[in-house]
């Protein structure tokens, strides 16, 4: 239409180049370096010269690592399901019933823009042994002793992450609900569907892309989260990222850390792709 279609393409690439260069420097090169590092061994304070797959052997071989991967995936899975399930009704509310949609959306996303660290810290003091919940319940004489199950376990991690990632789930679901042509719903009603049926037969299926998008958006980053498990997970709730961090700080085994990172990214990526593919197949089969 009114896009420069031929002349000055050079200008266009020129404008794009600096950004691409910075991103290549900051992402592509370092990741490549990480791959290289993962194929070496730590020798004192430097890396060995030879290439080896020993790190990958260690990562995939040790049972404790494997169970850590499993735990991370399960925690993220729980967070994803919880967050998406809680977010769907509110996304639906804003898309179909709210009168000032913009205000609602801003109100729902503002918490997302505040410091993640501070939000996790807030949960730590809420769930603590002498924390907000416990002291409140004790004060109200509802319990005699502080509840111990609140903090330093996977439960705390799941609750904290679900709270932190709530906004991420709302937006994609909202967008896909908003896009639904309202006349489709009217047509369904006209053809005899009750409100519930209409929801199940038209709204829900059409909003599936948003739900799937939200699930991926939450699952992928939460598996690699560091701050939440570190602050509220305790020994029972740590996840892969915490292990990786120790390789780079306390332990000093960078190749192992690199291998752990790459394996976990590959694994999470594979799970995500599998999920999307099976979700698509399920949606097609349901037609």
């Amino acid at each position, binding site marked *: *239409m009114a*896009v*420069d*279609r031929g002349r*000055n*393409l050079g200008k*266009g*690439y020129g*404008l*794009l180049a*600096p*950004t*691409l260069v*910075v*991103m290549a*420097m*900051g*992402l592509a090169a*370092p*990741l490549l*370096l*990480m791959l290289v590092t993962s194929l070496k061994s730590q020798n004192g304070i430097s890396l060995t010269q030879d290439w080896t797959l020993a790190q990958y052997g260690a990562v995939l071989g040790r049972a404790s690592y494997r169970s850590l991967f499993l735990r991370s995936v399960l925690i993220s899975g729980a967070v994803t399901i919880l967050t998406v399930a809680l977010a769907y009704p509110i996304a639906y*509310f804003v898309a179909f*019933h709210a009168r000032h949609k*913009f205000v*609602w*959306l*801003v*109100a729902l*996303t*503002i*918490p997302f*823009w*505040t*410091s*993640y*660290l*501070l939000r996790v*810290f*807030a*949960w730590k*003091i*809420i769930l603590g042994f002498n924390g*907000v919940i*416990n002291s409140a319940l004790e004060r109200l004489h509802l319990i005699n002793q502080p509840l111990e199950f609140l903090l330093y376990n996977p439960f705390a991690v799941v609750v904290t992450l679900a709270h932190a990632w*709530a906004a991420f789930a709302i*937006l994609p679901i909202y967008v896909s609900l908003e896009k639904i042509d309202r006349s489709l719903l009217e047509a369904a009603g006209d053809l005899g569907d009750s*409100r519930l049926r209409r929801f199940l037969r038209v709204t829900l299926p059409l909003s599936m892309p948003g739900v799937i998008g939200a699930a991926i958006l939450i699952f992928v*980053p939460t*598996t*690699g*989260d*560091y701050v939440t498990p570190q*602050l509220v997970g305790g020994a029972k709730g740590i996840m892969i990222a915490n292990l*990786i961090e120790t390789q*780079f700080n306390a332990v000093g085994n960078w190749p192992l*850390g*690199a291998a752990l*990172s790459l394996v976990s*990214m590959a694994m999470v990526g594979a799970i995500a792709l599998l999920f999307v593919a099976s979700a698509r197949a399920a949606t097609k089969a349901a037609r």
Partner: protein
Amino acid sequence: MKNRALTLYAFAYLAFLYVPVLVLPVFSFNNSEFIAFPLSGFTTRWYANLAGDSAMLHALGNSLKVGLVTSLLATMLGLSAAKAVTHYRLKGAGAALGFISLPLFVPDIVLGISLLLLLGAGGLPLSLAAVVLGHLLVCVPFALTVLVARFEGFDRNLEEASADLGENDWMTFRRVTFPLMLPGIVASLLLTFITSFDEFLIAYFLSGTEATLPVYIWGQLRFPARLPMVLALGALILTVSVALVMVAEYVRNLGVKKPMVGA
């Protein structure tokens, strides 16, 4: 009926989102070193102490420096990439955009340590400059999203009309493109600043001896006596962030027909 239950749910959800965060300001005025009920009286001493905490103020200065530089660079890079992609039919534009947005799909810890490796390989020291690079990785995609949306909502004919009416490229940019992009630019600056200012993990790996504010706070978390002060600081940071975000969202939607929200 369904509306009533849903509306209740919506407000309850909103409460769920905000109440935990409100713990920080509430207990920052609590006259006790213990963060528990019952509240022991009102005090502002934790806030007063902040003013004298030179280490904290130094970290704050670092965060401001990093934040300002990051937001300026991210917005500039985002601006040129957004213009390139919306104004020219470039082959591989989709792939380029995907590549630029990739950091959003990589866990921060991987971003942090991979940059650590890069510094090590290049013999470069840990520093605030390294933090800026790390922050650019996560901020440029945000800047790009805001600016591309702004460009796309921009009638391309407007620049052609300006040329048709006698203005060359530079004057067209000055008289039409820039004024109309300005809200998007301001929103991008604010949002990337907040993102950088609040970012912890990448800074943790790359800042070395010059801590940013989140890294400083992290260091304080292991000292129970310091917790109330952390609450006070946290409450301040939250207030400022919220204010900036509200300004950014307002500005972002100036002169736009369909409201744009979120990242």
